């Protein structure tokens, strides 16, 4: 792990600015296939907690879980607008916001990034870090052998 950290974080023009360990299962759930749950912190959340979110390159937007949405509700910027999002669970009505999301690093640097997030009342699933308005703003790599997530802002 340290070798890859060094190669990706410490070179003259590093690929990544931060690295963290991800969980490949969701706590308490028997999943058929490993997934990638990374740690993030929504800026402005009460009591400054961090959460796990499913890194989902096939997901269109970030969707905040009920608890994450609840923790930032008093700190959200003006709503960008309401829309109906097509999801795997069918159409979901909600609101779009811009929210700074902090990807937490164990090595290198934490990364704050402005993301477009979707908040739908009653969304019971975990949070998703989707592609548009979040992952497309990053350069990232995974090492599934060590559950390591490397990231930097896209240039």
């Amino acid at each position, binding site marked *: 792990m340290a070798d890859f950290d060094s190669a990706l974080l410490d070179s003259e023009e590093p690929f990544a600015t931060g690295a963290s360990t991800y969980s490949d299962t969701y*706590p308490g759930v028997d999943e058929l296939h490993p997934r990638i749950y990374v740690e993030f912190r929504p800026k402005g959340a009460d009591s400054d907690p961090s959460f796990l979110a499913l890194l989902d390159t096939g997901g269109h937007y970030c969707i905040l879980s009920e608890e*994450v949405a609840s923790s930032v509700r008093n700190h959200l910027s003006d709503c960008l607008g309401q829309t109906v999002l097509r999801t795997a669970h069918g159409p979901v009505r909600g609101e779009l916001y811009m929210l700074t999301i902090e990807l937490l690093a164990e090595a*290198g640097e934490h990364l*704050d990034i402005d993301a477009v997030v979707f908040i739908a009342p009653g969304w019971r699933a975990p949070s998703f870090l989707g592609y548009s308005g979040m992952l497309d703003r990053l350069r990232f790599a995974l090492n599934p052998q060590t559950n390591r997530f490397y990231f930097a802002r896209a240039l």
Partner: protein
Amino acid sequence: MEEILSHLGALRYRKAQLVAQEAAARFPGHAGIRRMDRALNRWKAATRPADGHSRTEELAWLRSPPESARGKLVALVGSELVAAADTMAELTECLRSKPLSRSPLVVRIG
């Protein structure tokens, strides 16, 4: 705005970005369009040094949570369960009264 939101809802993100950019140029005084253009096209990023902490202990705890935690929101610092509640509001209230060495990792146990 309606056109941009319609593109976003229909998952045509790049089209929404383009329309927001064009609309911001045409209507520079429109606060909503300006906000949308910033969110879609003029986002910012910043870094700050990590504190060297890892979540190894928290993730180890989460691999086999106790049965009593099922369905609960739990807050962990290291391998210590510092609070558990049914809702985020209750959990936040619990956390307010606890001096913690670092910010907790909060997870809803499935």
